[in-house]
């Protein structure tokens, strides 16, 4: 069953269990995105818009600038002091501790995605490191075949077939998109560690955790973001592209063969919409790749559907070579 949502592609409903929530989310997203249905007719411009996926760019750039200012004044200096003052051992312990606390929520999301093995690894890792590893301060699990991974609710929504929606820069939190922003909201109220702190009346622990995570994450990113900011031609555009690609990679769990040409940016480039009224998506079906043609604008089918799709497929697969040769 395919439900076409403008801008979000086809939402596939694998089973009744997930139907309710997926539908609610999709409705939310499509309501939020009522304004994005007007893609330009010019194929080049259209492709560029699909690649950048940033209809709110002016607003996003504004928030980005504010975030940058806050980063320069507060967050980065703290991370630099942390790097220089805290001994290596201390930094490792802190990192172990905060990543260990993410595992219960990761386990839940693995389960929601039907990734039973990964859920098992995350759960065992949490138990091992929380006990043998002294409340998560030491990582004994990695050496015992339980490597770390993270899953959040944004990735779970993606695994249910919910599209990312437009790019979004969140105040303080930085790069995101509509789907991942909803994921963050859900996480805030459903992370077991947060709930535990909340029901035991230790809300201050939530703030402590958020603070330590912020410092640890910023410290981890000091080198990478410093290089990127210094060397990129347009830092905002570089981060936007990086966020989208890293998220796509995380959703695939690093498994490149799951792409089906769905890598953002390149995906749009590989199969440019032949007819302005249609978007084409290749998806994994039960019997191999499945082509989903979704209306780019909410309009009734006026031509013969088969003819249209056939023309679109020829157009998309035929001349869509990635590199225009000189």
């Amino acid at each position, binding site marked *: 069953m395919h439900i076409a949502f403008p801008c979000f592609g086809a939402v596939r409903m694998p089973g009744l269990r997930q139907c309710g929530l997926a539908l609610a989310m999709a409705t939310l997203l499509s309501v939020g995105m009522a304004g994005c249905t007007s893609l330009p007719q010019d194929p080049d411009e259209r492709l*560029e818009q699909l690649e950048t996926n940033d209809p709110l760019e002016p607003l996003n750039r504004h928030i980005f600038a504010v975030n940058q200012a806050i980063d320069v004044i507060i967050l980065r200096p703290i991370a630099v002091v942390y790097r220089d003052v805290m001994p290596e051992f201390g930094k490792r312990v802190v990192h172990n501790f905060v990543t260990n606390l993410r595992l219960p929520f990761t386990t839940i999301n693995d389960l929601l995605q039907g990734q039973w093995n990964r859920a098992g690894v995350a759960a065992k890792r949490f138990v091992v490191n929380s006990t043998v590893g002294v409340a998560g301060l030491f990582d004994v699990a990695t050496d015992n075949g339980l490597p770390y991974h993270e899953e959040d609710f944004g990735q779970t929504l993606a695994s249910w077939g919910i599209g990312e929606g437009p790019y979004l820069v969140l105040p303080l939190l930085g790069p995101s998109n509509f789907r991942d922003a909803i994921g963050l909201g859900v996480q805030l109220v459903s992370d077991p560690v947060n709930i535990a702190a909340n029901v035991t009346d230790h809300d201050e622990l939530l703030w402590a955790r958020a603070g330590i995570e912020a410092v640890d994450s910023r410290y981890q990113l000091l080198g990478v973001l410093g290089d990127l900011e210094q060397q990129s031609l347009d830092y905002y555009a570089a981060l936007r592209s990086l966020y989208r690609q890293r998220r796509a990679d995380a959703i695939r769990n690093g498994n490149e063969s799951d792409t089906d040409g769905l890598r953002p*940016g390149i995906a749009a480039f590989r199969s440019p919409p032949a007819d302005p009224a249609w978007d084409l998506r290749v998806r994994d*079906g039960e019997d191999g790749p499945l082509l989903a043609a979704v209306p780019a604008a909410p309009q009734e089918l006026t031509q013969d559907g088969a003819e249209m799709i056939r023309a679109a497929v020829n157009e998309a697969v035929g001349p869509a070579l990635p590199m*225009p040769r000189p």
Partner: protein
Amino acid sequence: MKRFLHAAALLIVVVLAGSARADSGASDFIQRLTSKAVPELTDQSISVQERRNRFRHIMDDGFDMKAITRYVVGRYWRQASPPQQQELLSLARDYVVQLYADRFKDYSGVKVNISGERKEEGWTIVQTVIDQPAGKPQVRLDWRVEASGGKPAVTDMIIEGVSMVTTQRSEFASVIRQNGVDGLINLLKQRTGKA
């Protein structure tokens, strides 16, 4: 509707299967490229200039920079005048040397292991895993290899799921949208010390 989608899917599968036939020996090519590049570029005894020269040589040899530049400039390539195109081609090469060459000094001891190969429409993805010394994490690095003038050439490097070419393309587009092709040329000149 569903039947039509299945028919279309079948068509796609047939087309993809057809285009995947050409065998390019892509893995061998990457094996040769990296086993030459890593020792040459991580050599600790050479000067900065020498490392850049070697990098440029390896790049011209193994990468299709012309195709990469055209893809990265994207739709604006057609809008650029022939002199602008020439300038972009030469500046893009300088920019890439500037971006990556010096970093190889810190990469001594890395090992590139080929872990797989995958045919896609029109090109081959060679998957490698980079082993770093001293307990640093492994890095996934995929190479996109295409035939260029009868010989294989790299047209993209995808590090942990991030395509260098895609990232660069989005930056270039953003700069051109704001400041035009000349704005991009000026910025590249500035970055490569030619302004």
